[in-house]
């Protein structure tokens, strides 16, 4: 019993991280059809910021999360202004925006990853934080994972509530449904675009900070999370925030149980198997009506 609980919990914990990453990516894509393939690099940047703050200034990483979110938010606005604004303005069609932003995303991926390589090298970095174990009904968990899980779920739910119940959230949802329609009813897209892009990066940075509490970090850690996030938003449907949350937990559980029953080296194969199956059977996501 304890064993199965631990397995399910590890799937849910991974799912919690996926949820934060995927929500950020989905915000960016749903808003402007910007497929930000460098999302994982900003996650990695968030992880390095947290690691740096903890090892040099001895800041509690959990308390440092708002600072990471703020820093990445500002960075996001800068990146949007420098790169994506021009694409969104000059591209003749949505398809072209999609293709060009994908290429710019690859450029950013090279840029950010190699900057970090230059600065901190290729070594694995890490620190220990809350490593004592907690026992819940026969299953044992390291406390840091529980904290990460709690924080990730809280952040995701807070975002969902924000989108659901505030006027700003309503504007964001309106833009996800129809960018032109939203503009017609007077939503100020010139403000909303950079802010939402920044919010997406803030979520990626927080996810990275959370990961740094549990795993060792390296400059190449981001890419697998980009791919997982893409799978999750494909599962949940582009532009659906709740879909991302559910999809993230599904993928986390599939990976945890799949790896247990087959082998850990097949993790990528499992994720892609899920992606290909979903794209073939329900190309618009599991929850599309």
């Amino acid at each position, binding site marked *: 019993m304890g064993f199965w609980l631990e397995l399910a919990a590890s799937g849910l914990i991974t799912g919690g991280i996926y949820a934060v990453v995927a929500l950020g990516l989905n915000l960016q*894509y749903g808003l402007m*059809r910007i*497929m930000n393939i460098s999302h994982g690099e900003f996650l990695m940047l968030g992880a390095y910021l947290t690691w740096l703050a903890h090892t040099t200034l001895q800041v509690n990483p959990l308390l440092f999360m708002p600072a990471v979110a703020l820093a990445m938010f500002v960075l996001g606005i800068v990146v949007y202004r420098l*790169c994506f604004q*021009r*694409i969104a303005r*000059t591209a003749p069609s949505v*398809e072209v925006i*999609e*293709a*060009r932003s*994908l*290429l*710019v995303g*690859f*450029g*950013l*991926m*090279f*840029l*950010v*990853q*190699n*900057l970090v*390589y*230059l600065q901190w090298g290729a070594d694995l970095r890490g620190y220990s934080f809350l490593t004592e174990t907690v026992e819940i009904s026969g299953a044992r968990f390291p406390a840091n994972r529980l904290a990460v899980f709690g924080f990730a779920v809280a952040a995701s739910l807070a975002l969902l509530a924000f989108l659901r119940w505030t006027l700003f959230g309503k504007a964001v949802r309106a833009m996800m449904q129809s960018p032109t329609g939203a503009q017609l009813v007077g939503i100020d897209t010139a403000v909303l675009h950079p802010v939402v892009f920044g919010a997406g990066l803030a979520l990626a940075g927080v996810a990275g900070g959370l990961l740094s509490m549990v795993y060792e970090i390296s400059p190449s850690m981001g890419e697998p999370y980009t*791919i997982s996030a*893409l799978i999750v938003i*494909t599962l949940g449907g582009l532009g659906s925030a709740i879909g991302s949350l559910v999809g993230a937990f599904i993928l986390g559980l599939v990976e945890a149980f799949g790896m247990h029953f087959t*082998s850990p*080296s*097949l993790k*990528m*194969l499992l994720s*892609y198997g899920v*992606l*290909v199956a979903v*794209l*073939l059977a329900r*190309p618009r996501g599991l929850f599309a009506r």
Partner: protein
Amino acid sequence: MKTRDALAATLGCGLALALLPWLLSDFVLALVLSCLMYAALAVSWSMFCGPTNYLSLATSAFFGIGAYVTAWGLESMPYLAAVFAGGLTAALFAALVGAAVLHLRGAYFAVITFGLGELVLHAITHFEKTYAHTVGRVISDPPGGEAIYLTVLVVTLAAVATAILVRASRLGLALAGIGADEERAQTLGVDTRRAKIAAFTLSAFFAGALGAAMAVRWTYIEPLSVFSPFIGFQTVLIAMVGGAHTLIGPIVSSIFFSLLTEFLRLRFPYVFLLVLGALLIALVLYLPGGLASLFTRWRRIRV
């Protein structure tokens, strides 16, 4: 340029290039070889992706499949047969996958083709670990440098010639129609599904054949190096920078990029990729039509 003139020019260049192994030093020849490889990859990539505006990142998957055909087959078949078999295997794989995923567009298509490379990489790694108990494979008896060079040259020329022929054929027109407006092309009676699968398969054949031909240069083959996503990105980058809808653009930019890679990558790997990233962003933002669009713009001003 007329199709016949273009083919004649290709043949002429080919004959001139065929003499190089006896004129140049080994180092310069290796440079030319890498130019040829990227030119062929970029031309075969643009064959499908240029006119249709599909963004395929599957090149590294096809290249790696070709390389593994050589790694597995070179002991039991001659080099040239392995190259051909590598191309065929990659083409077969592309036809199967294409039938399944070519109804997707935009980012979905890009993501799933990127995933293909990773998928095949992990599948082969797992297969080799469990059944062959190895991580990589050593190619024990590689053919000589001239043989490799001439083989790659022939594959490159074939890719360029095929690209010229495709552009002039019904298939080429169908692909351009798909790129302009897929639904309209369908309404006008183009079997878009068949055209897309055919072009995707054709472009995969050359990527696979190149992988098979180049594999012997490495002597040690492991999944991580032959399925390196870098090969796929570099190909896309070269084709887009040159202008994927033209033929000459990708060829010119492949020369530029191979030289840049050769001189910078080994000495300053991180700075090189950093510059590459910045360059890619700048080009997409300020020159979305590629280098070829500079040329057409210049010609328009003169006329």
